[in-house]
């Protein structure tokens, strides 16, 4: 697939712009525009009008069964075109929008990487591949929301969005695992064919829905999207209305033909969608900031899309695909238009939008057109798709679910007409004052206005040629569900849906026209506050747990470890019986002698009063054990033990030379006999347990297997080493990592102590 090359190109140009071309972001931007065009061409050539969807597999980690699968089916073509065409339009807009802005290079870089990831999401043909690109879009979104890294609110919004969508991504990963284990595949086409059911599948459904709801800002995760408006307008228009937030809808669209039959799925989708629609609509009606108004309206429209795409009726799915296109077109126009007003007049207040009328007549006219499409007024495309949605829900044979969905959609539509009407009034009423002078160059003004006008033009053209667009949309819908065939018409004739629409428009306009333009502003939404409370209390909980368990007292740590280990092993011994006495002495007398010597050293280490002597005695214990290793035929262990012991003694001495010669008197919180008891207990229990474990072996030892495989498969005659570097190499990897962390810990502890000491001596010098 040539489209994959374009995706790769987007990533490469993105990285190159963010890293290498910081001083010349325009070069990166134009390269990106070229890749967008190439991607569009590739999509059209490969995907349009072909009988069989082109597929591609990128071998990645085949050994682990992790390959990336792509398929450019009808829906993939539609979504890729939306992503790439809008990406092109928004990037040209951004060139003017970011004029003289130093964050432009970073914006272009992440923006292109995002466009690549999003294309990956829409052409992924299995859930795993989608998950990979899904997470990439979350990360890009985080970086773009926090583009202005000097603003604290932007950073907070970015973190909220990342944690919310990231949690959803993890849910999706869980779904991938469950489906792979239970059904054996995560391919969308296979899932649709298999129609899997069962408890594990239900769990996977919940996880998929959580993933979709967090990404597409569905209730109760709707709060992060308005916060994401901290990002610059091109980002809001592209990521947070037209593409990324549609990823959840894409996921629902891909999976609802597979799971849509289950009542469980239908209820979740319909309730979440309807509640979101109402909350978003209601909030949109009360915003002062035009951008926030659009954000809340996006939330509301996403609710509608969730209901349509997820309810599991083929016709509703078709209507959902159509409305997805309609929403992408008019919402991009609206966002970019408001961005132009913001850029020129430096205001986004709803009550001042009218000032744009004299200065930006074309943009204002386009905004009016897009708003009418959003409200669903004939002859714009929004009307056509909303009619189709109502017809689909009226005809759906799903019982109560469809009824509730219909009621929710009608109520949501009333609100959506209402906030559109309010926006419309803000645009067309007589301005209070005339705006000040221009400050954008002529080229810039054209670049800014062009996509807005185009979006409005398409909203009108798609509406006027609805039957043609409807035919084009059949292929995408069919690729999702073989029954999802439908058609679009501009004038459906007078039927139930049209009557409902008429009532909706009249009621909605009445509400919207009467709604005040300067609403009482509320602070952060309840969702945001709840999120923050959960976030803070999680951190607080972690701190309390740490404070309770990590007291910082070394004797305490040793005691807890020793007591717990002793208790665990003692319970095993009491259940299975102590090892026979014979197993202690069935060794050569030499071994017993060395073991006794080691024991004597160990006891002496504890009782001597001098640190230096104790360190040497401890070394004696270590050397004794090395001797035991030799006697039992483990030269590798003995060699290592010997070396470790030598170095340990030296390092001990290095540390000891500036410490007092004698041990400090032990603290009194535990009496001496208790310490001795703990030490003796663990000293007795561990060897007994080791012997018990050796005696109670049931499975054959792995040693025989390793010995036979060592030379042939790993090319080594020393099986101990082969185990370390080959058979159990992962363990070694982990161990050296721990070793590295420990060394860094030593270095930093010493450094901190040094700094504190310096600070203290500096303080005392003054």
């Amino acid at each position, binding site marked *: 697939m040539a489209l994959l090359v374009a995706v790769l190109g987007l990533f490469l140009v993105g990285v190159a712009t963010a890293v290498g071309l910081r001083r010349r972001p325009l070069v990166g931007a134009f390269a990106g525009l070229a890749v967008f065009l190439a991607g569009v061409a590739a999509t059209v050539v490969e995907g349009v009008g072909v009988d069989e969807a082109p597929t591609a597999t990128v*071998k990645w*980690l*085949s*050994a*682990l069964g992790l390959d990336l699968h792509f398929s450019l089916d009808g829906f993939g073509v539609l979504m890729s075109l939306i992503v790439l065409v809008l990406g092109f339009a928004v990037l040209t807009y951004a060139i003017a929008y970011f004029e003289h802005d130093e964050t432009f290079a970073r914006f272009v870089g992440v923006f292109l990487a995002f466009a690549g990831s999003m294309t990956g999401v829409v052409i992924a043909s299995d859930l795993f591949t989608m998950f990979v690109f899904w997470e990439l879009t979350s990360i890009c979104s985080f970086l773009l929301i926090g583009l202005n890294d000097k603003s604290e609110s932007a950073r907070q919004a970015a973190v909220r969005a990342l944690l919310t969508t990231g949690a959803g991504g993890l849910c999706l990963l869980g779904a991938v695992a469950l489906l792979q284990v239970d059904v054996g595949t995560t391919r969308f086409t296979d899932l649709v064919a298999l129609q899997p059911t069962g408890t594990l599948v239900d769990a996977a459904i919940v996880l998929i829905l959580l993933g979709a709801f967090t990404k597409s800002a569905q209730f109760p995760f709707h709060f992060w999207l308005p916060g994401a408006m901290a990002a610059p307008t091109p980002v809001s228009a592209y990521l947070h209305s037209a593409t990324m937030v549609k990823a959840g809808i894409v996921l629902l669209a891909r999976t609802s033909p597979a799971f849509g039959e289950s009542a469980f799925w239908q209820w979740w989708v319909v309730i979440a969608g309807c509640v979101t629609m109402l909350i978003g609509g209601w909030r949109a009606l009360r915003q002062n900031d035009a951008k926030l108004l659009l954000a809340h309206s996006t939330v509301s429209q996403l609710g509608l899309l969730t209901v349509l795409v997820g309810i599991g009726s083929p016709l509703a799915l078709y209507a959902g695909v159509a409305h997805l296109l309609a929403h992408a077109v008019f919402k991009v126009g609206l966002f970019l238009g408001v961005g132009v007003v913001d850029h020129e007049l430096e205001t986004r207040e709803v009550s001042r939008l009218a000032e744009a009328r004299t200065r930006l007549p074309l943009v204002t006219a386009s905004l009016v057109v897009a708003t009418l499409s959003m409200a669903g007024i004939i002859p714009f495309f929004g009307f056509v798709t909303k009619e189709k949605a109502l017809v689909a829900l009226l005809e759906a044979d799903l019982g109560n679910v469809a009824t509730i969905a219909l009621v929710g959609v009608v109520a949501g539509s009333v609100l959506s007409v209402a906030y559109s009407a309010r926006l419309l009034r803000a645009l067309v009423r007589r301005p209070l004052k005339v705006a000040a002078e221009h400050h954008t160059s002529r080229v810039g003004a054209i670049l800014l206005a062009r996509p807005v006008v185009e979006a409005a033009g398409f909203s009108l053209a798609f509406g006027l040629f609805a039957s043609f667009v409807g035919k084009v949309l059949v292929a995408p819908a069919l690729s999702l569900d073989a029954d999802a065939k439908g058609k679009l018409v501009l004038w459906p004739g007078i039927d139930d849906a049209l009557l409902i629409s008429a009532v909706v428009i009249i009621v909605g306009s009445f509400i919207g026209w009467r709604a005040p333009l300067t609403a009482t502003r509320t602070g952060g939404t309840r969702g945001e506050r709840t999120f923050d409370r959960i976030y803070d209390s999680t951190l607080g909980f972690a701190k309390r747990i740490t404070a309770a368990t990590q007291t910082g007292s070394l004797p305490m740590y040793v005691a807890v470890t020793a007591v717990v280990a002793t208790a665990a092993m003692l319970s095993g011994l009491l259940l299975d019986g102590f090892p026979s006495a014979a197993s202690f002495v069935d060794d050569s007398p030499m071994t017993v002698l060395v073991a006794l010597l080691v024991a004597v050293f160990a006891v002496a280490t504890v009782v001597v009063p001098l640190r*230096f002597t104790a360190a040497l005695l401890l070394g004696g214990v270590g050397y004794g054990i090395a001797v035991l290793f030799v006697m039992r035929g483990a*030269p*590798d262990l003995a*060699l*290592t033990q010997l*070396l*470790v012991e*030598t*170095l340990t003694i*030296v*390092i001990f001495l*290095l*540390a*000891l*030379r*500036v*410490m*007092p*010669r*004698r041990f400090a008197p032990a603290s009194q919180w535990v009496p001496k006999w208790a310490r001795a008891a703990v030490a003796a207990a663990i000293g007795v229990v561990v060897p007994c347990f080791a012997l018990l474990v050796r005696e109670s072996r049931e499975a054959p030892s792995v040693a025989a297997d390793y010995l036979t495989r060592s030379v042939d*498969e*790993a*090319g*080594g*005659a*020393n099986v*101990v*080493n*082969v185990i*370390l*570097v*080959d058979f159990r*190499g*992962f363990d*070694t*990897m982990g161990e*050296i*990592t721990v*070793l*590295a962390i*420990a*060394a*860094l810990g*030593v*270095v930093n502890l*010493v*450094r901190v*102590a*040094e700094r504190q*000491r*310096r600070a*203290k*001596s500096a303080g*005392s010098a003054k």
Partner: protein
Amino acid sequence: MTSPEHPKDVSNSGGARNPSDIVRSAIFDELVDRWLSKVAVLVAIYVTFRGHNAPGGGFAGGLIVGGVFVLQYLTGREPHVRFRTILHPTRLLGFGLLLALGTTVTPLFVGATPLESHIWKLDVPLIGEVKIVSSMFFDLGVFFVVVAVVLMILLSLGTRQSTVFGDEDIA
């Protein structure tokens, strides 16, 4: 630290920066630097590479090299390689970890399981057939990590000791 006996009670310390006046003598110096270090490094390399077939391996080899640095330290010098002091043992640490990690994941890219060994057999003139096993690189990674860990501990606990545990502000 407020213990009155503290400053005088410290063994071997005094104001001298180097701890090891006892072992410090010209002959010892010469012996360690000229011969012992070099021989020990050779032994370490030998031990590391023979590890696949006989007792030894990266861990033991790394410890031997660590021992060389300890000896150098005890003769009163900073640990060094060919008169150059080692300034950034953390880089060595990272290099070792990356080498081991690289050996772990490389088989994935040729369609094998992680850490699966590949055996190359080369015919080297004069020496004959030489067998190279890919897990050798993993062992080398372990070697570097161990060397780096010893160096880091030595440098932080050793050289800066007087300021770390601080004799000067008591005196």
